[in-house]
């Protein structure tokens, strides 16, 4: 939220591209989601894996920003990598749920909705993230169509997050 606001202010005041903020957004989003999955998959995934996922991604991100694509290029590979890692973690959580055989009604849990939202969002956007630099060069109608799909997936993600939050409240009650 803060990064989005700063990016918007940046465009309005400086009139310059706010892509650098997008790089930052991806890093913060990734680290936040990774922390959530670390909590969800406690005792199921080794600590060293989380350390590698944290430091590995940060190193690749720094390399991409400073040496490879730079601050002003669209971070397509980094975003696709983030999507891939999150998808693997979502599948790990689903596997854990099936192995544990404890939750009878997963649709009544926060974790299930959060993972489902991310699964739909990142799987749908994976190709768009991976080839976004190519898609940016498309004709306007096609470009719009692509980003409308992205928008729909975004709406879907946040609607599913809302359901997840409702279930958190019900569980607490």
């Amino acid at each position, binding site marked *: 939220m803060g990064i989005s606001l700063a990016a918007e202010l940046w465009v309005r005041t400086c009139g310059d591209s706010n892509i650098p903020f997008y790089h930052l957004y991806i890093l913060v989003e990734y680290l936040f989601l990774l922390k959530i999955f670390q909590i969800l998959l406690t005792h199921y995934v080794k600590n060293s894996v989380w350390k590698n996922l944290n430091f590995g991604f940060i190193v690749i991100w720094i390399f991409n920003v400073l040496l490879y694509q730079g601050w002003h290029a669209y971070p397509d590979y980094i975003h696709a990598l983030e999507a891939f890692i999150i998808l693997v973690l979502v599948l790990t959580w689903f596997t854990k749920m099936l192995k544990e055989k404890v939750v009878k009604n997963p649709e009544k849990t926060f974790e299930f909705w959060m993972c489902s939202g991310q699964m739909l969002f990142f799987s749908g956007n994976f190709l768009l993230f991976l080839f976004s630099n190519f898609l940016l060069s*498309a004709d306007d109608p096609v470009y719009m169509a692509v980003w409308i799909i992205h928008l729909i997936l975004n709406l879907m993600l946040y609607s599913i997050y809302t359901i997840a939050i409702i279930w958190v409240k019900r569980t607490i009650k």
Partner: protein
Amino acid sequence: MGEENNQIVLIFVISAAFVVLLAVLLILFVVIYNKRIVTQENRLQKLENERQQLLLKATIEGQERERSRLAKDLHDSIGALLSGLSLNLKFQKSKEDTNSKQFAFLEDACQLVQEGIENVRKVSHNLLPSTLEDFGLISAMEESVAFVNQYENLQIMIKCEHPKMALSNTIALGLLRVFQELIQNTIKHAEATKVNAIISCEADDIVLTYNDNGVGFNGHLKDSKGIGMKNIQSRIQALDGIFDIDYTAPKGFNARIKVPLKTESIIG
């Protein structure tokens, strides 16, 4: 960007939609499959619990049968033998001069045999409490603590809120054994001076509330590394009951045993 590239972009869009559809299907599959395996797991768990319950009941029934056999054997064989011996000694004693050494010796022997008969009777009675069948749970509980009230520095109060309550023999025997175990623990380890046991009814359950003013739960656990407590739990589990201990009490031991009064187990 040419027409060809636009087609490629369109393929991307279609691919994205297809991947989303696959993800939806995968999530649906996970939910349905999970429900199925969890239901199956619960069913298996339930069957296993039922099997364990049956096994426990059978073990306890076997123990009671064995106790009953031992009690009858003691009473019929050793009891009868000692009674015969006592009669013989008394007959022999009657023939002797009251001032003779033989008379004094026979007098002592008679006394010892009498003590033996009394001990056999007590052991046999503990193994098979006939009072339970003849006069009910409260009388059996009172009888089992009669010696404590006489000799120990411990006051035991037994109260029944529903004196006309009819219980099946299994439940009554189970509750009596649990009560005896708790009393034993209190005497051995709790250092208590007062015990209260209340039998009451709650809807379709019979409740035994037990409390003493001793050193608390840890004292009761000292009994052979908690074997007494495990026995109590097994007996209550075999009766489908619940055993609650109040761990928050600052002093004393407070337990509550709740056993369902099943319709088929109620005697008239």
